[in-house]
């Protein structure tokens, strides 16, 4: 088996045992990227020298008998909103072109200390605002299963890179579904941890009360391994929870006898495609056959979560993105005309249309005369949405839902109507508003060969239970083992 086809756990075991070197793993990943990324376009920047130097340090540790860490030699891609000291980080935006991060994000430092080898930065929707990766200032990513379709977003590059075997592990961020939805559309596993489980230090903020960093991989075991390394309190993030990190890589239980899994009645009335519904019902049957009890639950405010989310997230974004004003970072424009004009010109030139739209929306819902009707009301609805989940978890251990109402759509299909794009987030958004952990795993394919994602949601800080339920499904099915066919020089179809 080629190294790039191995899981992260398998690569780390191979490097630790001296079966192959971290350098060989890095070279194989770089070769694979050279072969397929002309089609997929997941990476914005590669750092071969840095990757090989890091790999050599791992190999030296192995040779000298030191512990090289649980991610020894695993090639990792990073979404382009995670800071690596001295490396360019742009958030997929022209406004940060050329900006080099002055420090490492906490997750970057923790992965590095665990033996991970960083390959480069992965494409994304500008400032993580988007569900298709078409809002990047640097061009869209292609879905490896069909290059004329979107990979999902905003962590589209991370999902596509893992699906196309360019890296075994990638880190993304999830504010309203930006890990789970691209994981679903690209057929890989993507975990959004509980809010506060992972430090956000060094993650460029979109909506601070919703953002959370999480891993993408091709197996639930790998996602669990990455979470164990990333998670835990951090004095540099006051919102990181002061809780110890539980073991997430235990063997899945042999049976789910006695486990109650909730299926929300509302998810069948929110525009799910027929094939997604079929795969979802089949996934539920896998659990039922394993002894789990499936119970119908109610999430009555699910249909209101999109409106609630797009008020709160844009309000927070309008405030967070005020710092991009041509003074401390990135580009500057209109400097000859005075301070305010310089701000306005820099932001007009540096931000793309979706970011401008959301900043304006957020500014509007926070402005005098509209604050009460929009923002203050949305915060109350957010409470109702969280109450819905709390009530549901009184009767079930985890919730099952589709991740996305459809499989991957075509490039350009939804760009003309921002609201239609927002509505595709219906199944993922509530989890962020309530701060819960959730994972998307591959539960099969539609007739066109496009992957369908199963979303599993657990109560806050119950990642071990969440990952048990996900691993159980993976142990009974083979969908996650299928890989997209991509050859050198393959052109986008359609």
């Amino acid at each position: 088996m080629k190294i790039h086809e191995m899981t992260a756990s398998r690569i780390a075991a191979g490097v630790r045992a001296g079966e192959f070197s971290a350098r060989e793993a890095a070279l194989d990943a770089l070769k694979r990227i050279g072969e397929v990324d002309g089609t997929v376009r997941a990476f914005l920047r590669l750092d071969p020298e840095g990757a090989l130097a890091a790999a050599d340090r791992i190999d030296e540790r192995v040779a000298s008998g030191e512990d090289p860490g649980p991610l020894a030699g695993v090639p990792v891609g990073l979404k382009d909103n995670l800071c690596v000291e001295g490396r360019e980080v742009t958030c997929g935006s022209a406004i940060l072109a050329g900006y080099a991060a002055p420090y490492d994000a906490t997750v970057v430092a923790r992965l590095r200390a665990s033996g991970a080898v960083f390959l480069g930065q992965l494409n994304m929707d500008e400032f993580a605002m988007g569900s298709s990766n078409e809002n990047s200032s640097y061009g869209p990513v292609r879905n490896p299963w069909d290059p004329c379709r979107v990979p999902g977003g905003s962590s589209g590059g991370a999902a596509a890179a893992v699906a196309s075997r360019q890296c075994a592990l990638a880190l993304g961020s999830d504010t309203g579904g930006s890990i789970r939805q691209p994981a679903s559309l690209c057929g890989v596993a993507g975990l959004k941890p509980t809010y506060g489980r992972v430090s956000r230090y060094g993650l460029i903020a979109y909506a601070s009360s919703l953002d959370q960093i999480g891993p993408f991989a091709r197996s639930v075991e790998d996602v669990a391994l990455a979470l164990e390394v990333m998670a835990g309190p951090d004095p540099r993030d006051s919102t990181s929870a002061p809780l110890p990190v539980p073991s997430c890589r235990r063997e899945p239980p042999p049976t789910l006898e006695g486990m109650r899994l909730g299926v929300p009645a509302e998810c069948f009335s929110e525009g799910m495609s027929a094939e997604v519904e079929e795969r979802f019902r089949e996934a539920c049957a896998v659990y039922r056959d394993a002894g789990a009890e499936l119970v119908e639950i109610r999430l009555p405010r699910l249909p209101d979560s999109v409106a609630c989310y797009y008020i709160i997230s844009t309000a927070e974004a309008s405030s967070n993105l005020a710092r991009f004003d041509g003074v401390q970072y990135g580009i500057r424009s209109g400097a000859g005309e005075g301070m305010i004009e310089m701000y306005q010109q820099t932001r007009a030139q540096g931000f793309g249309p979706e970011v401008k739209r959301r900043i304006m929306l957020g500014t509007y819902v926070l402005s005098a005369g509209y604050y009460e009707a929009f923002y203050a009301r949305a915060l109350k609805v957010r409470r109702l949405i969280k109450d819905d989940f709390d009530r549901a978890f009184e009767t079930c251990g985890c919730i099952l839902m589709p991740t996305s109402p459809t499989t991957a759509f075509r490039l350009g299909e939804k760009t003309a109507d921002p609201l239609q794009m927002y509505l595709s987030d219906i199944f993922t958004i509530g989890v962020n508003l309530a701060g819960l952990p959730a994972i998307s795993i591959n539960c099969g394919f539609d007739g066109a060969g496009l992957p369908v994602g199963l979303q599993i949601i657990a109560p806050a800080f119950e990642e071990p239970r969440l990952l048990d339920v996900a691993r159980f499904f993976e142990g009974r099915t083979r969908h996650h083992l299928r890989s997209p066919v991509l050859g050198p020089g393959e052109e986008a179809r359609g």
Partner: protein
Amino acid sequence: MNDGGITREEVEKVARLARLAVTAEEKQVFGRQLNSILEYMEKLGALNVDGIEPLDHVLPLRNVMREDIAASGSGPQAFLAAAPATRDGFFLVPPVLSD
């Protein structure tokens, strides 16, 4: 909540508050798109939220203090190096006051 939709003047006002220069075409397109999004958001007006405590954050937030001792950091040069214009260790901006 929003009778008659967002006006051109309101689009201009919001752009000014957000420090965004917008073209005539952007005013028109953003105005139309914001209207359709805000109209959709008005559905929240139908929910009864009387007596509901707002939820601005899922965690019980409290201030986190550290020991008052010096620690190593990146230093001012690392931050100044990322700025578009600096002079003598300061960020350089266009004139704020005219004479």
